[in-house]
């Protein structure tokens, strides 16, 4: 027995700041699973972890940056993508991963998201979508499904939620996928592809929030996972405009877009720093 106790060391422990574990996420919260998929993908993809940075904003998923044992950056609310863009421009060798929530990336940070996608900055954005503002007590968010009950919509949400993959595609992202935390292996594979993809990559991860979203909609964590199992359809290469969040009709999962176009750095170098200009300046010196 003593020997077994010595070996109790989780395979991901070297990528975690163990002194901070157990983390603050509630029992049944899916962020932990999304986070561990992200760590597995980082390790499996073979990217240089010394040159990898994790950036997150504010919110439950924003705590991710504090738990990873790599260079990480916990930024102001909604500003994860601008910080990441700055880091990527200053040092193009870095692999920058943005790990944040739906409220942070799409409500307060919505503008930053669409413009980073338009410029095609070489980032990997993992958005944990739990359909609500979990940390502040479960208020209605831009991603709350129609008719779902929240603290601020006690009779049901009257508005339609964002279709995040469509938004990412329309803004110009070069890799777009959506998975749930139950489809962990596909999710890990997808994050791996996104890390290796050159350009703006976006992955939406549906994740249960049993305490602040589930409780008001009569579902606990396991119920949410069962819904993800029964009411989702995997359809790779589906059209982005067919991906609305509607649990009655079924939610489409999969890898939707993978294309290539010049990144922000490429275009900047071609336009503002063309070869002949740099060589001319050198000659003058």
């Amino acid at each position, binding site marked *: 027995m003593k020997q077994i106790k010595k070996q109790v060391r*989780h395979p991901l422990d070297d990528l975690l700041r163990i002194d901070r*574990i157990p983390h603050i996420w509630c029992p049944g919260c899916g962020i932990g*699973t999304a986070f561990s998929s992200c760590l597995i993908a980082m390790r499996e993809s073979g990217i240089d972890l010394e040159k990898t940075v994790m950036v997150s904003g504010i919110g439950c998923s924003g705590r991710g940056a504090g738990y990873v044992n790599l260079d990480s950056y916990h930024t102001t609310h909604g500003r994860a993508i601008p910080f990441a863009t700055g880091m990527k421009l200053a040092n193009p060798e870095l692999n920058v991963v943005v790990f944040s929530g739906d409220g942070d990336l799409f409500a307060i940070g919505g503008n930053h998201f669409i413009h980073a996608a338009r410029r095609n900055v070489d980032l990997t954005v993992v958005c944990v979508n739990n359909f609500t503002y979990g940390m502040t007590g479960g208020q209605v968010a831009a991603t709350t499904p129609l008719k779902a009950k929240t603290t601020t919509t006690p009779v049901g949400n009257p508005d339609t939620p964002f279709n995040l993959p469509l938004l990412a595609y329309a803004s110009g992202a070069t890799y777009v996928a959506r998975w749930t935390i139950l489809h*962990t292996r596909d999710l890990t594979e997808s994050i791996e592809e996104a890390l290796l993809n050159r350009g703006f990559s976006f992955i939406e991860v549906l994740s249960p929030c049993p305490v602040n979203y589930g409780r008001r909609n009569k579902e606990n964590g396991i119920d949410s996972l069962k819904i993800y199992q029964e009411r989702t359809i995997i359809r790779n290469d589906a059209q982005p405009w067919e991906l609305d969040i509607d649990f009655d009709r079924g939610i489409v999962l999969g890898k939707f877009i993978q294309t290539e176009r010049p990144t922000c750095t490429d275009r900047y170098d071609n336009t503002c720093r063309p070869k002949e200009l740099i060589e001319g300046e050198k000659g003058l010196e």
Partner: protein
Amino acid sequence: MVFWRVPFDSEEIQITTGIVYIIEDRCKGCGYCIEYCPRDVLEFSSKFNTKGYHPPAVKKPDDCVNCHYCEILCPEFAIYSVEASTEQG
């Protein structure tokens, strides 16, 4: 293992077995590993951990096929499996 028809190569195929390790004090008792274990290896234990949750316990240790699904589904980094043969060697 029970088959409805025994595959022709069932004698040649080696089924890997795994040993499940549980870091009990990290567990928050969500029950995802117990619900989604494909071989139904785990159950809630009756004892409490230091945080007051019931961690999972291994019910049928011989049935684990080392698929690692509990390991990747656990949000708490509290469970993992290791292949049995490498452990013995």
